[in-house]
């Protein structure tokens, strides 16, 4: 080395410290547990017979034949594949490498397929119906998660998603009934979400109250308020206040005829199509526009944003309101598409699952959407499987989505890093 003092030396230096060799056995351990469960369930307690998968609906353009799968044979294949994937994961972990997300996804898909085959032995499982209800359950979760992403990216933890969804559901039911217009109900739901957000913003940004506490209190407040109004006002005046008109289904030509996934994705109401647009728009705006750059800057390092002339608290305030509007729109789906009318606590904790989807999705709108879909899919299994004569108790199936969420967030994501200043108020001296 014959460098002289005057040259800018640090340009040649390695920028990272060495990484320690850390062997993580988490993923192989989870794989192994599921493989053992698979052996017991699919082989030892295996069920004989044939499982039919109905891949088409009666109105599809292209009719796929009903797939017949021998149950025990499929179970054995699934167990073998699981064991191979477990071995791969063990080998990777032994040499201190990370198990790629693709392998994890493949394992999950294979195991789920095995489980479905086993649970529906001797019956017919309607796959399009399963997917349709999966999307249905996912819609409010996705709206909620998008609201969560926007809010947390700008630096405000949005625990109030639950309250925003519920307020949206309640207000949209009442407004749509009174005006006889689903669209006006939908807009009212967004306004309701904004109002809940406004309280969150005023207390957490202006008065520096702990964001998580304000969020939790807001959820309890909205639950209490809607319960009260429902039992005192709506229940006795259902025809005049709680009989909202619904959005019609608008099948998209050609796309809705795609086998298996077409009906679930493209034979939907306008809310679902707006959701597709919202997913793309939030992603695009967050990462490609000036608005997004500033939002992320404020959520990562508010002082730095302030020193380049960005008004931190105004940016936070406006975007928390925007987050409320997005989550509120998700609430409208309950009253204007999913169920015939507003019922008490119709959201049933969906807002908290949306919050988990934000973290599981690493504060990225696209990944958060996938996380919400995973939850929606596992939730919808209980309906399809009990219809297909599953031997698993329905109570267990009710539990499944939450178990999957915990495994996903705690087990597979591990330590993920959110926006650095999320949850911290910005105080100017």
């Amino acid at each position, binding site marked *: *080395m*014959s460098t002289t*003092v*005057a040259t*800018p*030396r*640090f*340009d040649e*230096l*390695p*920028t*990272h*410290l*060495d*990484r*320690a060799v*850390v062997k993580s056995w988490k993923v192989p351990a989870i794989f192994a547990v599921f493989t053992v469960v698979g052996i017991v369930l699919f082989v030892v307690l295996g069920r004989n017979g044939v499982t039919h998968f109905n891949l088409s609906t009666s109105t599809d353009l292209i009719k796929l034949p009903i797939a017949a799968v021998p149950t025990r044979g499929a179970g054995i294949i699934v167990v073998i594949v699981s064991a191979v994937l477990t071995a791969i994961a063990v080998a990777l972990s032994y040499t201190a490498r990370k198990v790629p997300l693709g392998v994890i996804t493949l394992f999950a898909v294979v195991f789920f397929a095995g489980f479905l085959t086993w649970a529906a032995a001797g019956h017919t499982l309607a796959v399009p119906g399963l997917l349709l209800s999966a999307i249905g359950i996912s819609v409010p979760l996705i709206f909620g998660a998008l609201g969560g992403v926007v809010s947390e990216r700008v630096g405000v933890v949005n625990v109030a998603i639950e309250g925003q969804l519920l307020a949206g559901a309640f207000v949209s039911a009442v407004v749509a009934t009174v005006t006889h217009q689903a669209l006006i109900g939908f807009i009212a739901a967004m306004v309701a979400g904004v109002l809940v957000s406004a309280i969150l913003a005023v207390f957490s940004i202006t008065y520096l109250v702990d964001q998580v506490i304000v969020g939790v209190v807001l959820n309890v407040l909205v639950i209490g308020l809607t319960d009260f109004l429902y039992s005192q006002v709506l229940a006795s005046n259902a025809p005049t206040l709680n009989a909202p008109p619904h959005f019609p289904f608008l099948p998209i030509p050609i796309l809705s005829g795609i086998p298996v996934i077409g009906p679930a994705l493209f034979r939907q109401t306008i809310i679902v199509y707006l959701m597709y647009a919202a997913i793309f728009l939030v992603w695009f*705006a967050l990462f*490609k*526009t*000036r*608005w997004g*750059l*500033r939002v*992320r*800057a404020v959520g*990562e*390092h508010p*002082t*730095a*944003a*302030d*020193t*380049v*002339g*960005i*008004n931190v608290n105004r940016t936070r305030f406006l975007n928390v309101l925007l987050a409320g509007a997005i989550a509120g729109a998700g609430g409208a789906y309950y009253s204007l598409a999913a169920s015939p009318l507003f019922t008490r606590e119709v959201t049933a904790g969906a807002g908290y699952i949306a919050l988990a989807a934000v973290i599981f999705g690493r504060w990225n709108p696209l990944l958060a959407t996938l996380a919400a879909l995973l939850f929606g899919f596992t939730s919808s299994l209980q309906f399809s499987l009990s219809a297909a004569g599953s031997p698993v108790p329905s109570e267990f199936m009710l539990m499944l989505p939450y178990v999957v969420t915990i495994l996903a967030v705690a087990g597979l994501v591990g*330590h993920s890093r959110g926006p*650095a200043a999320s949850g911290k108020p910005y105080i*100017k*001296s």
Partner: protein
Amino acid sequence: MKLELRGITKRFGSLVANDHIDLVVNPGEIHALLGENGAGKSTLMNVLYGLYQAEDGEILLDDEVQHFAGPGDAMNAGIGMVHQHFMLIPVFSVAENVMLGHEQTRFGGTLDLAAARRQVREISARFGFHVDPDALVGDLPVGVQQRVEIIKALSRDARVLVFDEPTAVLTPQETDELMVIMRQLKAAGTSIVFITHKLREVREVADRITVIRLGRVVGEASPTATNTELASLMVGRAVELTVTKDAATPGAPALVVDKLSVIDVDGQIVVNNVSFDVKAGEILAIAGVQGNGQTELAEAILGLQAKVTGEIVLDGVSLRDKSVRGVLNAGVGYIPEDRQQDGLIAEFTIAENLMLDRADGAPFVARGSLRLAYLADFAAAKLREFDIRAQGIATHVGRLSGGNQQKVVLARELSRTLRLFVAAQPTRGLDVGSIEFVHTRIVETRDAGVPVIVVSTELDEVVALADRIAVMYRGGIVGIVPADTDRDILGLMMAGDTPDSIAKQKGAAA
């Protein structure tokens, strides 16, 4: 651009941080603002930058009065700032950081990243910076991050550039390079305000020097003034710049650290296979630029790090698997580098802070109760012994000055019988008087036969205190050298060169 501040006054409650400060910076001039920590330099610059609003006084640019409601106004008027704590977003690329706040956009508000990249390349080329516009800022070394800050200011056509303690995080070589950059900027007509408390740097680069003390301008000096003159102007009395100490009389190795590595939560090896020993009655200074593993090394000795491999042996007893309590009981005293975060509890009184580490039994606790009378006597004695300036032992520590806070930490740690003393950044942010006091006590501890480790990023402090110097770089010890080693060599070691390779280069050059 000519900058003029007239009668700037800024109060925080009853504290007058700036008291009628006047300052004139001429175009193309490097004007140093010299003062101790807490003298009001940063407050003044934050007023200039629109972050604070002054109660009184006015800011003039080219003889026109300005009104800055926020940093945006100041930037638009042509004022740029290179902050002491960089105002950069680590997860953004260089280009994104530079464009933030004045983004060029195309249709629909989409970012024009290509334009930002061009701008970064153009300014980099002008000053020979070699900055990749697409690199993530968090991945860059601090020296390069500082250049990104400079590019950021220049991309907004800053014609008055404020450098707030820019050398605190740099190696001596990086500091030299910064001086070159400052001269280049000056030659291009930029007016520069250079805030510092380091006398050497001021004399090297400044055209004019304004000294402030306790919020007031106390005088102007020329760069030809001696260190002693500048220091006495800054402190307000004659000061002793060197530490008086006798030669060490080291005994047997007391602390032996062998192949010590520390792994942080992200799996990075922050301390990498470090071996050294410290003899009884000797001060081993650990030098290095901030963030090269010194902090983690000190914490590992104390038992504060979770993943540690290797061995730490004090007087034949292994400390590695001991709890923090166990390490303290083994006779280790510790001054943490962030006294407000880790050294003290601001809401507690002086007396309570003095017994924090001995809340588990004698002499302060008997039968589960505090012995308050004993504590009061003890605290009163320490207040006198360590010259802690406070109303009394019941004063909350948070209300003391930095120097007095550090004296409380020092009093607590030195009041036990020590077998090892670890002082991390013992004088950071202190006034000159307190620095003298702390240094004297550290030398006294050494003279009492205790092995001492001083971790410091200030080369002056390292050279003043050390009997031997270990230099750390990227988690490893580059070399352990005698205290009289040339500063240039220490500087090269702080940038990662081993003493052997430096000797070879010298040989090749000669």
